[in-house]
Every structure is written in C-alpha cells, then in structure tokens.
C-alpha cells in the first residue's frame, strides 16, 4: 500500500490528467467534434439545428438507457429493434379505438412484456452467458419483428389516418415546455428515475454485482435470476417508451422502423464507458455516449459525409471503444 501512496504523490498531476482522459474520453471527443464542426460549418450552431438534435436523440436515448442495465448486468439485448417495431405499430393502431392514454400504457406494457419474454427464455433455457443471450435475443428480435409485420400486414400507419384526438402524441413528437422539447423533459424525468434506481436501490446494486461476478453474487445471497429478469424488463420498457417517442416524432409507424437501433444503442452504451464485461457503468455515462453518437451523425451530415461512410465510422468507433475498455482493465 505504501507503494500506491508513493506512486500517487509522485505524479499526481500527470496521473489526474491521465485519469480524466481515460474516464471522460467521450466528453473530450464530444468537445473536439463540436468545436471542429462549429468552425468548419457554422450552420451547426443554428438554433434550428440544435432543436433538431434535441428531438433526434429522444428514441435512441430511451433505448440506450434501458440497454445500460442489461450490459451492467453482464448481458446483452439484440431484440430492441424488434420491440420497437412491435410497440410502434400496435400503439399507433390503438390510439383510435382505445384513446390516447390507454394506447400509451399498452405500448409500454408490450415493451416490458417483450423484455419479460426475453428473460423467461434466457432463464428457462439456462442461457446464462452473454454469448448465449446474444443469440437468443437476436432470435427474439426476429420474432417480435414478424409479429409486427403480421399485426400491421406490412402497412405503414400514419397520424393523419387517425380520426380521433392524437394531441398527446403530437406534443411528444413536436411540443415544447418553455425552451425545451417535450421529449427532452421526458428524458430528464426518466434519467432521474433510472439514476436513482441504479445508484440508490438494492436491486440496482444487485444488478451491478450480478454483472461483476454472478457466482460470488449468488453465493452471497443475491437473487441473480431476479436481477436478470429485471434488466430485461427495464430494457423492454424503456425500448417501448423509445418506440413511442420515435413514432410520435416521425408521425408514422412502419413495422421496420426499429432497424439499426440495437447496434446504435450498444454503441452508445459502450462508447459512454460502460464495460461489455458487466458490473461497471452508469446511466450518466450512457447519456454522454448517446450525445456523441447523435452529434457525430449530425456533424458528419453537415460536413457532407455519405451515410454509408457514416456506418463505417460507427463500426470503427465501436471497435475503438471496446479496445480502450480492454486496455483499461489490464
């Protein structure tokens, strides 16, 4: 221990700087990206563009926040795309027949139920490793997507087809509270709740412990099976919320709108600094990760980089983030 103390004294400043860059690499990257883009393309700081960004990050943020718990718990969920497809088409179709609030609640329940179904499949098959969960949820994603297609008959549904009131969804999609968009306010509330859940509750702690070392957690009396159930339900529920925010913004719901969300969500969580190995991470880090991912697409759009090349960039960043994370743990 004396060595550690000595070490700390010797290079305190250098080490602190190193630690800052290591822990907040994402923040540094965001700052650099914003600065460069703002200089090269002044349109970036245009209020309309900023509002656009604020609206854009809603759906991805919700899904990524849910995904954070799954990853902290040491698992992964590839089914979010399927859940978005299913929740979006079912919810939009129920606004007319059931009314707005029942439709909204039904959408959230379906999301949570899909998560519960994932968990049930994992627990009953005993697929208690991340790799097994990867394949299993990938399969579930195709199931949820197929259900969405069956339900909608493959048709895209539009807001303007809904004859009854859809004011609530319109305000989720385009409304404002003071200077903030409604979706931004929803984000703040959800973030606060999830942050409390993660850092203050026994279940939140149990999830981290499960992700950190399943065996040790079980031998210490933690209900790891319950933790696994909870992470998937939280992820499903948050994905449901994300789906609602998404179709409210684009005012249509097709049974394929969720495509790509699983990769973007995992990318955001990992770039934020939550380790894929489980046990370590935070919802606040995910917020940074999502910001980076969204800002990056926005900046690259403004800079005229092709969409195809943007996908390549995302892949490269994911690899970089995992590489950095593995170096950190040596």
């Amino acid at each position, binding site marked *: 221990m004396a060595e550690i103390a000595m070490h700390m004294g010797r290079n305190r400043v250098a080490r602190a700087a190193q630690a800052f860059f290591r822990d907040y690499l994402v923040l540094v990257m965001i700052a650099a990206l914003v600065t460069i883009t703002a200089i090269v393309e002044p349109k970036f700081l245009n209020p309309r563009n900023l509002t656009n960004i604020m609206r854009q990050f809603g759906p991805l943020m919700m899904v990524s926040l849910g995904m954070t718990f799954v990853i902290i718990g040491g698992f992964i969920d590839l089914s979010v795309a399927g859940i978005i497809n299913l929740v979006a088409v079912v919810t939009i179709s129920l606004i007319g027949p059931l009314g707005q609030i029942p439709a909204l609640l039904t959408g959230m329940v379906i999301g949570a139920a899909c998560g519960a179904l994932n968990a049930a499949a994992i627990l009953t098959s005993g697929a208690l490793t991340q790799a097994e969960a990867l394949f299993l949820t990938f399969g579930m994603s195709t199931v949820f997507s197929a259900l969405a297609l069956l339900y909608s008959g493959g048709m895209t549904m539009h807001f303007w087809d809904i004859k009854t009131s859809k004011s609530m969804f319109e305000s989720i999609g385009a409304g404002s509270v003071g200077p903030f968009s409604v979706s931004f306010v929803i984000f703040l509330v959800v973030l606060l709740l999830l942050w409390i859940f993660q850092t203050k509750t026994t*279940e939140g702690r149990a999830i981290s412990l499960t992700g950190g070392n399943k065996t*040790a957690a079980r031998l210490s009396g*933690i209900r790891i099976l319950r933790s696994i159930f909870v992470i998937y339900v939280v992820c499903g529920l948050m994905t449901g919320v994300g789906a609602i925010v998404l179709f409210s913004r684009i005012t249509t719901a097709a049974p394929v709108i969720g495509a790509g969300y699983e990769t973007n969500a995992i990318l955001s969580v990992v770039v934020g600094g939550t380790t894929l190995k489980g046990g370590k991470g935070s919802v606040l880090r995910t917020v940074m990760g999502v910001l980076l991912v969204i800002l990056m697409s926005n900046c690259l759009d403004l800079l005229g980089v092709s969409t195809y090349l943007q996908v390549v960039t995302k892949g490269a960043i994911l690899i970089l983030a995992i590489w950095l994370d593995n170096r950190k743990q040596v």
Partner: protein
Amino acid sequence: MSDHIFEMENISKDFPGVRALDSVNFRVKKGEIHALVGENGAGKSTLMKVLSGLYPYGSYSGRIIINGTERHFHTIKDSERAGVVVIYQELALVKQLSITENIFLGSEIARNGVINWDLALVEARKWLQEVGLTVDPMEKVVNIGVGKQQLVEIAKALAKNAEILILDEPTAALNEEDSRHLLNILRQLKAKGVTCIYISHKLEEVMSIADSVTVLRDGQTVRSQTMAENGGMTEAKMISLMVGRTLEQRYPRKPHQSGEVVMEVRNWTVWHPELVEKEVIKDVSFQIRKGEILGIAGLMGAGRTELFMSLFGAYGSRSQGEVTIHGRKVDIREPRHAIQNGLSYLSEDRKGNGLVLGMDILSNITLASLRKLASPGGGTAETGPQLTRAGVINILQEVVVTNRYVQRLAIKTPSIEQKVNNLSGGNQQKVVLAKWLLTQPAILILDEPTRGIDVGAKYEIYLLMKRIVEAGGSIILISSELPEVLNMANRVLTIFEGRVTGEFYPEKTPVDEIMKAALGLEGGAA
C-alpha cells in the same frame, strides 16, 4: 552422477509473500520409479511445474540437469522435447474426440498440414498395446471409463517419446482394480527403461511401487532415499516426515469453551451433479457447538468442499438428510436461505466465488448484507440502523459500517473506494471475511481461509477466528494444512472419499493417527 537421469539443484521459487520452494534438491536415477510425497502445499506441484517449464526458466532459481546437461525450459513444449511429460490430476483429454485424436493432440502425424489418419491409427494401436489397452482407437474418449482414460493419457505421453513420466495423483479418481492395473503398467514401463516420478497421497501405493522416495515439507526436501536405505522406509516414517515433529508457534492459543449445539447435520448424502448415481458425500452426521472451532481435515477431492457447499445450498445437485440450526429444522436450497439461517461460507476460491474483483471494497463488504438488512428490524447494535429501507440503500450508513470493518480487520487500503482487484491476497481475504462477519453469522464456514496469503496475514486471520469464537460464534475450519487444523480446532473431523473417517481431539490424539484417518488408512474414533 551419471546414473541420474535428471537432477534439480537448489530450486527456489517465490510467490508474492510466500516462498513455495526453498533450495529443493531432487535427483532421480534412470529407470526407477521415484515417489514424491508431502502434504498439500508442501511444494510438490510447484516443483513439477518448474520441471515441466510451466514456470519458465528465469522465474525460479536453481539448475535443472537432464542427462548431464543443464536445460532451460521456457514452455511445456521445451520440456516435452527433452522427454519430460507430466500427466496431471485433472485429465487433459478432449472428451468428444477419439482416442487416436487425443493421443496425437498437438503433435499430429501430418504432411504439409494434412493429417495422415491411416498412419495415426496404426501408431495409436501400437501405443495402446504398450499400456495394455484393447479398445477401438476410434472410440470417443467420453465413452471409456476414467481408468482407461488415464491409460490413454499415458499412451499419449509415450507417443511423445517420454523418457521421464511424471504422474500427479494418477489413481485419485480410479477404483481399486483400475489402480492395480495402472501400477502394473507402470512396472512394465519401468522394465522398458522409462523413468517415472510418482506423486501420490496414497502411501500404500507408494510402498508397493516406488524404488525411491523424496519427502517435501514446507517447500524443502526433508528426506530423499531408496526404499531400503536408513533401515527401510515405512508408511509411518513417511507420515512423520511429512508432518514434521514440531508444530511451530504460528498460532494463537486456543480458546476452549463450547456451549450448546447450534447446528446438527444428520445422514447427509450428496450426489454428483453429473454422474447422478455417484455419491460424493455418504451419510455424514456431525454437530457443531457454540464457541467451537471444528476442524475438517482431508485430502483435496475428499468431499470437504462438496459437503459444505451443499449444506450452504450452493452445490446444485441432489442431496438428502436433515439439518437443524438452533434446534429448528431448516431447508436450505439457495445460499440466501443459508444466510438467513445464520450460516456463512467463505469459499476456497476467493477470486471466483468470494469477490467481485472489479468493484470497490464498500460494495464487496456489504454484498451479502443488502437483502438481510432490508427486512424490518434487521438492523442490530452491530450494524447500527438498517442499511436499506424499502429497497433503498442508506449509503451514509453503508460507508460508516464499511469503515468500521476495514478498521476492525486492519484492511490496508487508501480508501474504501479502492477496487479489491488492487489489494494483496491477505487484504482481499479480509474483505471477504468482513463481508461474512457483517451478516452476523451464527456459524461461519471457512474453506481454506489462509490459502495463498502471507504468514503475517495468516496470523491475523487466526486471531480473528479466536475472537469470533470467544464472542460466542462457531467456526468450521476446512483446511489442507494439517498443522493449521490441529492448532486452531477444538475438535477435528477427518473426511475421506465422502465419508467421515474419524473424530479427534487434537490435544489427545497423536498427529500420525489423524493423518492416517485423513488418508483413509484406518478408521479412527474419538
């Protein structure tokens, strides 16, 4: 000089805080069967890992001389090229592959990367014949018994042109008939000039097969002789050499007070998780009293860990029997039930089962108490107010409690936010101990509590154990180090092959007798 096929001279090997080998000398003559005996932790395996290159040249001091020339092994491949092949206790066969594939695993008979299976089959038959096996070489390893698997291992070693064959507990998993067969094969190999190092706890076998024996104790060679020298070697002599005459004063004085029975186990039988017919624990009954340290002695693999893991609800297989705690019958199916009933289990696998290495001291110490203290009235004078209420953690209280335990156990760390990964072995063990003490257990099961930690920390853990029992707790101490058990425990149970073979009071019984019972040589009684 020249009749020694190999010599290890002044071999020393250090691990952080522990000297595992201390100037060990080990010489083996060509064509003999040389037994290497010693207690668990005496350094036998370490010595063989040095010889096989698993601990590469440079990580130890001393010289290895084979056939007159000094050799530096950096990998296992190096030593195999020199004709040294180790067959480990856990078989290194790929179960789903055929016998032939296993025999030539890693040294396939191939040309330009294409395996010549016809030739491999012919060769495999030849080697199988050598070890007296008449099975189809295309048979999958999983389909033949453990005894035959062991012989396949030997065939595999011979296929590598082994001159020096090292067998680590080869008969540990075998029944009597297979063991006898194996020993016969070894005698035949000896007649063909293969040198054999035989590591075993089964002294009876050593007596029947070995030409010479070397005894290790605490990382030093205490005796190396032929079976005939010094008036002839006997089992009793080996035991006294292994245990040593004097037990040093490395232990605090034993408290001796025991009260009423706190836990009673009756007719406890546990079945193997995979081989459903096999009983790993057979009809075990015992009691533990308040304020008592009950020592459990026995070999690795005797069923010590299985017994207590199953009592703790963590073994994951069928078990049968009755457990009462404080006179109340309990049904423990999960570790959390055990904890609720006042049972704690410190695992022998500190890193795998005890700690969440990537997390801080705080989370690790309160790990087992989050649930227990969440119930109303769960707070005690010891922990202060409840740690959690309605599922929300009282983090301030958590910090206070953690700091108290860090101080009490003298865990050396700059802060409780330190990741346990960065702590020394001794301090890590104290964190696990703190975790279990915080659950206020009535009975604390300690499985190898001092394994791999330095002498100073060991003594602190002994003192802590003493304080726990003096405060009215009960401890079950499972240990492979017989001196530790004898010096700490008020009463000792010996376990051999899943059965209790004796109950002793260490003050009243000669060490040799306890050792014999632990080795399954004869039944003992209190």
